[in-house]
């Protein structure tokens, strides 16, 4: 096998590991998706009628307000997912297992690639969940299929960019590191 396909295999192995972590300990992922859900329910369900009345020419009530606030909440979900990534990467980098990976002849990038792809999968599931709840609350976007494809594409790219940023923050040497590598 070529080194590129090894890199792919190793990344897939790391991805499986991260998804297994997320399934076994979903609290971090859940915390990431609970915040936008609660804000959505609060703003639409509790405050929606009052806030909707202020929208003026767009109509009124909670149903029109959910159309107004929905896209913002969706973006928040994508951004919020990155927090979990930064924490997961930081925990990984400070744990002992990273040193094992570093002494093995594996693709160096696969640890990070696994994290990025894994958290994108989680973020996209969270986003779908938030969109679903918004639709239940009366979110009726007017976009056609092609436009939806554009939305999904844009969300994936935003998630990709923000996740790498989170990986950078999580793996920065200034992050809290209880077991500094400078041991002697």
């Amino acid at each position, binding site marked *: 096998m070529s080194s590129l396909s*090894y890199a792919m295999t190793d990344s897939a192995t790391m991805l499986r590991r991260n998804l297994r972590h997320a399934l076994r300990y979903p609290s971090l992922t859940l915390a990431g998706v609970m915040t936008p859900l609660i804000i959505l329910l609060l703003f639409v369900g509790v405050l929606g009628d009052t806030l909707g009345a202020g929208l003026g020419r767009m109509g009124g009530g909670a149903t029109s307000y959910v159309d107004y606030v929905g896209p913002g909440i969706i973006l928040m979900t994508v951004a919020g997912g990155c927090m979990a990534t930064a924490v997961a990467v930081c925990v990984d980098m400070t744990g*002992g*297992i990273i*040193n*094992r990976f*570093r*002494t093995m002849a594996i693709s160096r990038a696969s640890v990070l690639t696994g994290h990025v792809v894994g958290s994108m999968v989680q973020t996209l599931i969270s986003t779908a969940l938030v969109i679903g709840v918004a639709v239940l609350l009366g979110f009726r976007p007017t976009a056609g299929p092609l436009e939806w494809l554009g939305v999904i594409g844009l969300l994936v790219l935003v998630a990709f960019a923000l996740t790498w940023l989170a990986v950078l923050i999580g793996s920065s040497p200034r992050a809290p590191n209880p077991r500094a*590598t400078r041991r*002697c």
Partner: protein
Amino acid sequence: MNQHTTPPLAVSATGLRKSFGDKTVLDGIDLDVAEGTIFALLGPNGAGKTTTVQILSTLLTADGGEVRVAGHDVAQDQDAVRAAIGVTGQFSAVDELLTGEENLILIADLHHLGRSEGRRRAAELLDRFDLAEAATKTAATYSGGMRRRLDLAMTLVGRPRIIFLDEPTVGLDPRSRRTMWQIVRELVAEGATIFLTTQYLEEADQLADRIAVLDRGRLVADGTADELKRLVPGGHIRLRLADAGGLETAARRLAGSSRDDEALTLQVPSDGSVHAVRALLARLDAEAVDIEELSIHTPDLDDVFLALTGTHDENHKELIA
């Protein structure tokens, strides 16, 4: 393969140097480890043992010197080195959120063993390290000894030719420690080379074919356990006497002895043989000296260690406590 004129060396380092900032951790170290042997790097805390292992296992780069592991230069050809080695560090390198079995399969996948071979190897190692029962529990629930065994099992998945063990028995109870020693001996019997660091002299004595003593970044001795023991003065017989009068008499009678008035003890240089002890007792009997306690002290690695690494450091006192 390179043509070697000397017998094949698993690890060789010449003039190895490393400093962090202005603190010199390794100050020109030369090491040679022959294939299929156990090499122990012995030293007090902060001597540079872990740094040495980290450099040999490609985790750190040296500031100077040439290091070859499995015939490959660690600075130039890291992947070739990594393919030949297995490392069990001081801190457990297991994934706590995965089960024992998943941990092993993860490593098998990273070695590209293939699905069925990976599972077979994982099952074999779980069996061998007595972890089969706990295979489906997450590593976070494991005891210290189990975690160490899983850690070592993960190191062995890829059948490494050279195995680095950084203080493999720290924090283990005596039984687990003996199990670990047994495993190490089996690995060497199977043809692996073991490079271990330890601060336990008994461990080095029990296991190692060759021992190097590291102190403050320098190698202060290198040889077999017996060779090292020859470096320090011979043994002695230690007597504790009933009273100060007895001590006085005995000290006068036994030339070359050194006394401790407070503890009422007397150290008499001796080879510790039955003949010497009998002669000593006969002389004291003739003076009617009352002996409370007698112990024979042959030189062990503790003496070597203390003699070589200086006795001013607090760490050393802890070591023999």
